[in-house]
């Protein structure tokens, strides 16, 4: 094992990786899937040190959150690592963009900046312009372009070795209400999690173990770097393990999924991670004939996480690419979340996708996500906090070096999630022979194509389309479709005229599309007072969803529906 992997802090990990001078590094993949020149990890970290000096020249202090609203590229890499070396807290954020107005993405970013008290957002010139148009002056004035940072002469700053419990960076994650939360990832967690993941990979596969030890493995990723699976799972793990990283932008994969597989098939020993939807997209859009010369036999770890793993998707993918040598046993479901730095459990037997059902009448069989990773403990608890036994369904709790140090500037949310050193994940599942199976979520977020969506944003759109000044109430949730989760909104209305309701449904669908870029699978109407609520009047989304699925909602008829 190399020295960087044993580092107690992220800061120390970066210093050791820089000194190691390994020939491994990162190659950026362009929009057509072509691999650029490799920059060794040492070279990248040398550039990051210059960036750290520039951030110091900009006036960035130790411990100061710096938002990076940048896409995948050299600028992001240098500035993210530069911020860590400066002792500041990088906060990777999705750069707003896409089809239609992404107004809500700008508002979300603005709210994040305010919540975490960031003074600077490194992003495109257009970000500042759009922020002004939307009347978000605080965001507009915080924007600094990467070009402007690059023009600064690096200033000296006093580097101080952080303690293991110090914060290394902030990871944005969606709560079910309000603005995204910023997870405080510790120096210890950021250094430990890559080691935990790499050792989980190695223990299931001797070929991979040998390749990792000899520095002959490549990670091929298009995952966004503002997502924990892209940042920690791919970038930090590759750097820590002296693994080559072939890094593309998400857009490259979504536009040309075959480029991901072609790159995976061009290296002798490959690792990659992606959400379930990505495997489905490949099975649907890529034919083996589109990948001349690709050999997928060396793809020893095809990790699947971030959304529920569907056995039928895994099977379709494995079958489709078996002619190119893809081994179904390489498909490794895993479980992680930003609040645990990332990895919690990894399928470790190299036995592909397996399933089991909870005890008794606990529900249908679900996919095995493997045992906890290195130094990590998982328990399943009843609502009263008592630990449950084999096969019983409850809330999944996690303890270990990756567990976060709370949400930045959000003590209430922190108190809900961190209890006596245990992370209460909000996910439901059970343990069987020490392996974890997830059955659902108690957090009410929607996960569409690997992207988290907050229900309150959908509800706000529906309620405001109905024109009721806070009077109309809505519930948003997801339902399972053939290809993944789909969004549904149920709205309470006064008006019950079928033609008017049909018009309102379309208006809500159009606004949702324009503001969030998300198609609604269904928009249902009920009479006022028919949505289940708590005594304090809060809509119970889970109950609304159960009623909807059981077809027990008293839906008002729409014209043409």
């Amino acid at each position, binding site marked *: 094992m190399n020295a960087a992997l044993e580092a107690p802090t992220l800061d120390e990990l970066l210093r050791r990786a820089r000194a190691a001078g390994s020939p491994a590094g990162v190659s950026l993949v362009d*929009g057509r899937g072509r691999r650029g020149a490799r920059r060794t990890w040492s070279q990248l970290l040398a550039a990051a040190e210059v960036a750290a000096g520039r951030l110091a020249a900009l006036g960035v202090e130790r411990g100061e959150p710096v938002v990076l609203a940048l896409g995948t590229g050299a600028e992001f890499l240098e500035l993210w690592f530069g911020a860590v070396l400066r002792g500041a807290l990088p906060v990777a954020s999705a750069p707003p*963009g*896409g*089809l*239609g*107005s*992404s107004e809500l993405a700008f508002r979300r970013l603005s709210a994040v900046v305010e919540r975490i008290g960031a003074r600077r957002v490194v992003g*495109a010139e*257009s970000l500042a312009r759009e922020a002004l148009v939307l009347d978000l002056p605080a965001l507009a004035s915080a924007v600094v372009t990467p070009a402007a940072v690059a023009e600064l002469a690096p200033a000296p700053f006093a580097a101080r070795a952080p303690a293991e419990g110090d914060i290394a960076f902030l990871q944005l994650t969606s709560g079910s209400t309000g603005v995204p939360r910023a997870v405080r990832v510790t120096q210890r967690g950021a250094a430990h999690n890559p080691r935990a993941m790499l050792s989980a990979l190695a223990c299931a596969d001797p070929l991979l173990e040998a390749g990792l030890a000899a520095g002959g493995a490549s990670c091929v990723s298009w995952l966004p770097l503002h997502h924990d699976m892209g940042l920690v799972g791919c970038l930090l793990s590759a750097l820590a393990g002296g693994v080559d990283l072939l890094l593309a932008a*998400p*857009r490259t994969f*979504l*536009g*040309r999924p075959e480029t991901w597989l072609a790159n995976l098939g061009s290296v002798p020993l490959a690792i990659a991670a992606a959400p379930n*939807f990505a495997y489905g*997209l490949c099975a649907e859009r890529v034919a083996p004939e589109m990948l001349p010369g690709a050999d997928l036999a060396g793809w020893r770890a095809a990790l699947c996480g971030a959304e529920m793993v569907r056995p039928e998707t895994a099977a379709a993918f494995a079958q489709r690419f078996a002619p190119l040598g893809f081994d179904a046993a390489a498909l490794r479901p895993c479980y992680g979340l930003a609040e645990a730095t990332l990895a919690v459990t990894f399928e470790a037997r190299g036995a592909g996708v397996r399933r089991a059902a909870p005890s008794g009448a606990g529900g249908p069989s679900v996919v095995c996500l493997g045992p906890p990773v290195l130094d990590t403990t998982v328990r399943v608890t009843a609502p009263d906090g008592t630990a449950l036994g084999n096969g019983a369904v409850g809330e999944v709790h996690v303890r270990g070096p990756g567990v976060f140090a709370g949400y930045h500037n959000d003590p209430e949310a922190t108190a809900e999630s961190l209890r006596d050193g245990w992370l209460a994940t909000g996910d439901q599942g059970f343990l069987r022979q020490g392996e974890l199976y997830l059955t659902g979520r108690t957090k009410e977020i929607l996960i*569409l*194509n690997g*992207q988290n969506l907050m229900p309150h944003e959908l509800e706000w759109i529906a309620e405001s389309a109905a024109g009721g000044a806070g009077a109309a109430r809505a519930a948003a949730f997801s339902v399972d479709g053939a290809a993944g989760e789909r969004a549904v909104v149920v709205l309470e209305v006064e008006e019950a005229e079928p033609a008017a309701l049909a018009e309102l449904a*379309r208006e809500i*669908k*159009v606004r*949702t*599309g*324009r503001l969030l*870029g*998300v*198609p*609604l699978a269904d928009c249902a109407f009920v009479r006022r007072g028919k949505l289940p609520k708590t005594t304090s009047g809060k809509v119970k989304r889970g109950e609304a969803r159960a009623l909807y699925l059981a077809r027990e909602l008293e839906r008002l008829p729409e014209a043409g529906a």
Partner: protein
Amino acid sequence: MSDRREVVLDVLALVSGVPRASLRPEQDLVADLGLDSPKAVRLLVELEERLGAEIDDAEAAGLSTVGDLLQLADLHA
């Protein structure tokens, strides 16, 4: 109809799965044709490829309907 408009309709039908003959300028890309974010990105990438044009973020932000895409084809002619 211009060849470039034809290209737009071909790509849209391919990406959305909606038959070409049912496409109308007033249709909304997300609400009516069901383009989720992976499909929207694929649409932009395919259009760039087949129209030989680059569609920047500001332009993409102005695209909401089938008609907007047809106008884009004219713009990049």
